[in-house]
């Protein structure tokens, strides 16, 4: 429903602007999208001809290939490229992807006699881009919304900072800008290709929508030395589906019915 309405608005806007449907595929600048859909520029990225597309993006995290060095690299790369600020005060912390232990990743699956390997292993956690996202349901302004390819996105310009989505998320994947991220050197070596945020809005992992739009895999996947695999969950030929076919995978709190798109091979 949501997507249909969004797309309808996009199409309607484009028609009004007198642009042909061809230009929708590759010629549209982000500003045009703003004018037509009411979404801010950061919420919809300009798609290039080689943009990666999928029916439903998903990720498989192979814990057997993980170590703390890879996890550090993943977190650093993601937070760098997305201008995630670093605040000294833990309360103000912003995290898109980070690692923690099995018992925190899967609190409902705590085993008394857990495999030794898993006990101390760092495991990355991020937004699950749920097929049935409670955060999208909770948001009173549709500032957080689900794209047609399953990615749960944030419009930083529409968010009123009520933090209902943070209460709704069963994974603690969302962060709030309790302070101005642009002050006090919170962002080192700013990436000018990606927007910085303002104080008072919520943010989280976007599955690197801005990189998919130009034909690149998410950065965490790229630096993970094969531990993270990204692809179309709806495509039986995709690498993620092959992995899920051959291995037993678990997801975080799948009993809640949110249908997460991030799988873990343990």
């Amino acid at each position, binding site marked *: 429903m949501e997507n249909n309405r969004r797309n309808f608005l996009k199409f309607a806007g484009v028609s009004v602007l007198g642009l042909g449907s061809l230009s929708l595929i590759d010629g549209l600048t982000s500003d045009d999208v703003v004018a037509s859909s009411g979404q801010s520029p950061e919420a919809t990225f300009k798609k290039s001809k080689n943009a990666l597309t999928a029916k439903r993006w998903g990720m498989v995290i192979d814990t057997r290939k993980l170590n703390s060095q890879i996890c550090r690299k993943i977190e650093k790369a993601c937070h760098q490229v997305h201008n995630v600020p670093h605040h000294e005060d833990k309360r103000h912390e912003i995290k898109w992807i980070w690692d923690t232990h099995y018992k925190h990743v899967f*609190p409902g699956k705590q085993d008394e006699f857990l495999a030794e390997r898993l006990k101390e292993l760092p495991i990355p956690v991020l937004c699950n881009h749920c097929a049935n996202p409670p955060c999208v349901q909770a948001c009173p302004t549709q500032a957080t919304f689900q794209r047609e390819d399953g990615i749960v996105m944030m419009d930083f310009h529409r968010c009123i900072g009520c933090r209902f989505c943070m209460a709704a998320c069963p994974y603690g994947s969302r962060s709030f800008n309790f302070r101005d991220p642009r002050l006090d050197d919170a962002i080192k070596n700013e990436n000018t290709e990606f927007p910085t945020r303002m104080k008072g809005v919520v943010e989280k992992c976007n599955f690197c929508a801005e990189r998919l739009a130009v034909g690149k895999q998410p950065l965490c996947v790229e630096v993970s030395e094969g531990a993270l695999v990204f692809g179309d969950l709806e495509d039986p030929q995709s690498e993620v589906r092959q992995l899920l076919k051959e291995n037993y995978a678990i997801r975080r*709190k799948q009993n809640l019915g949110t249908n997460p798109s991030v799988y873990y091979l343990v």
Partner: protein
Amino acid sequence: MLEKALKGSKAYWIWVLALLVVITVGFYFYLRQLDFGLGITGMSRDVSWGFYIAQFTFLVGIAAGGVMVAIPHYLHDYKAFGKITVLAEFLAVASVLMCMMFIIVDLGQPMRFLNVIFYPTPHSMLFWDMIVLSGYLFLNIVVGWNVLDAERNSVPPPAWVKPLIYISIPWAISIHTVTAFLYCGLPGRGFWLTAVLAPRFLASAFAAGPAFLILLCFVVRKFTKFDAGREQIQALAKIVTYAMIINLFFFLCEVFVAIYSQIPEHLEHLEYLFFGLDGHNFLVPWMWTSIALIVVTIILLLNPASRRNETVLGFTCVGAIVGIWIDKGLGMITGGFVPNPLNQVHEYIPTKPEILITIGVYAAGLFALTILYKVVVGVKAELTA
């Protein structure tokens, strides 16, 4: 009628001025919060709602509690309450105003709050909360004002007010139900994920609201010539008694479910609140105080001798309100966030600016209440003169 608020004794003006000073202090710290961001509070990415939302929850209850005067009067034709319906309605007005202010001060981007109207989203409970709260505010202002105006002119209220009065009764239930739905519909928060949350909210509302009204009647009687009446106050006290017991019963039902089922997602939050978790126990003394107050006030309310003694009743009402305030204004919201979804314990302790802003909002609410009540007692005095 508003002009009645412009004439008052010295004590009245000192009170009004004192409130304005407190409001100014709160507003100053709110400006600092606007500048610095919500990081000025004790909230974090783990406990993302704190004192503000908790006060909001508590005050929705005070607002809804007014219906305990409307139901006996308008549905059961209990004539005695006719004297105090306006007091209950204006208490609801002031409470809803405070609720709205608490929502505003809790927003990260308050300038954008109209986005809730620009992009109406019926699948969000916050959208419905906005509708029911603003509707309830409107109903109580219109009904209260017109009934008082009619009383002043010694005529019955206009006929079109009657339907609004009847609508306002289920509407009062709706405001606290939707407020409970904000929390109890979230899949990952075991503490709130209980069907008894809305009924429990209503029960505590029907205790705290009338208890607050009793105290206001005492204050009005002390400082003005208007006496709400002994019968009215005793009837309210009986309502408080029933509601306190039902609230405690619902709470014990929740405790049973959590303890007997032993499901960690439900149990851990109660464990944190009443015993502490991983060495974090900031709320433990508060929660036991709350339980003690609720139990003691129930005993004092059940005992006819102590209930009929107005001095004791005053203290009992204070105890009941504080007990419920701790439960809803401290434990209910924080308790749902600790432990966090990753089963880690990050505690929340409100900061000084946060508390001062909260006190400022309460002062603003009391200011509105003072003005409205001044008008009421002014009209009542005019009638007896």
